[in-house]
């Protein structure tokens, strides 16, 4: 279980507990947090669950696997802290994670 803070582009914060084994994307979708579309449902095929990971957290996350950066090339305004939230698996180590949503996904 990890407490994750999702910050919408307008600054609105959502603090929710997400079960281990879910992804950060699923944590948002299951809690009706706006700002993450996840059009493809988590198969790393669409780049609409794009988030910016808060600075100090970015390096603590497990590294991106092959293909994630390729999808991120197709995201809305990616930067060096960009991740696809469907590729971040929740575990106890992620307790306190903060992610910010881009202005839009498409």
């Amino acid at each position, binding site marked *: 279980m990890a407490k994750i803070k999702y910050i919408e582009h307008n600054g609105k914060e959502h603090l929710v507990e997400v079960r281990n084994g879910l992804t950060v994307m699923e944590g948002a979708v299951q809690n009706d947090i706006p700002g993450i579309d996840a059009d493809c449902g988590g*198969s790393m095929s669409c*780049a609409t669950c794009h988030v910016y990971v808060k600075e100090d957290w970015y390096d603590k996350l497990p590294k991106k696997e092959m293909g994630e*950066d*390729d999808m991120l*090339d197709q995201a*809305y305004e990616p930067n*060096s802290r960009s991740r696809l939230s469907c590729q971040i698996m929740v575990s106890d180590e992620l307790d306190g994670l903060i992610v910010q949503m881009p202005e839009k996904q*498409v």
Partner: protein
Amino acid sequence: MIETDVVIVGAGPTGLFCAHQLGIIGLKCEIVDNLDKIGGQCIELYPDKPIYDIPAVPECTGEELTNNLIKQIEPFNFNFHLNDRVQNLKKENESWIVKTTNGKEFRTPNIVIAGGVGSFEPRKFTTKNAEKFDGKSVLYSIKDKSIFKDKSVAIFGGGDSALDWAIELSNTSKVSLIHRRDEFRGAHASVKKIKELSDKNVINLFTKYSIKDVKGNGSLEEVEIKSEDGESKILKTDYVLGFFGLIMQLGPIAEWGLNLDKKVIPVNTENFETNKKGIFAIGDICTYPGKLKLILSGFHEGALAARGCFKYARPNEKYRFEFTTASNTIKDRLGVK
């Protein structure tokens, strides 16, 4: 003007199976899709990824599923209108007049929207000024490469489209290639070629840069690019090309006066009709209490929507339920003995 019983918007699995059900009950349909191929998301997003939850098919890929669905509707000889998009609708008596982007017209009592999460469209630049030049000197696809001859072209992106066009256009144009990171996702051989051309100064390569602004008085004159740490450069250019892959947009459907719940269309679960008579929505694009975004749910929805269409296509006939195993009429339609 093409007269038909049903126009299906979207050639993904849901649209294809709905077409099958229409064929089974003796109705005609025309299928329109924005992509250049049949299969929707299954083909565009995950042709090689295995799917495990199609009833009675333990495992298949998006491509196999699509091919089987195409085979299943072959007996009906339905027309596909690919690379085209349903643009606007007009009610005329009991019919809908449907116009496509390519200028085709249909007269039909029924429209079935099986549009998935929308139509695939190129992702565009987010800079406001890019809109001013959109379609003239800021482009997201190339129809006629001769317009770039002896011009300077700034290409953005790191995939095969960006790399292939950078290589191709470097023969006759002054090409700059700009990508947000050092790695490219294009084919290995193309990446190698790009590096060679860059070493020979044939192509100006800018990695870890993205677009900041485009400028020009009337016609495009320059593009400003920025690095992650805020440093910016100005490149003189006649054209700016963006290749960032495809995104899904609801597109013109949003203008049809349908009730919308964010990006999906509420329907009733009896025949999947929307708030507009004769317009049905099935698959990922529809919503109702308990909706599951599964291909199998789309099949069920398509079967019921097809029966809903029958009522308007054959107002003077009574729909009679039949099994494919037992009905000679259906066997005739399928061309089997």
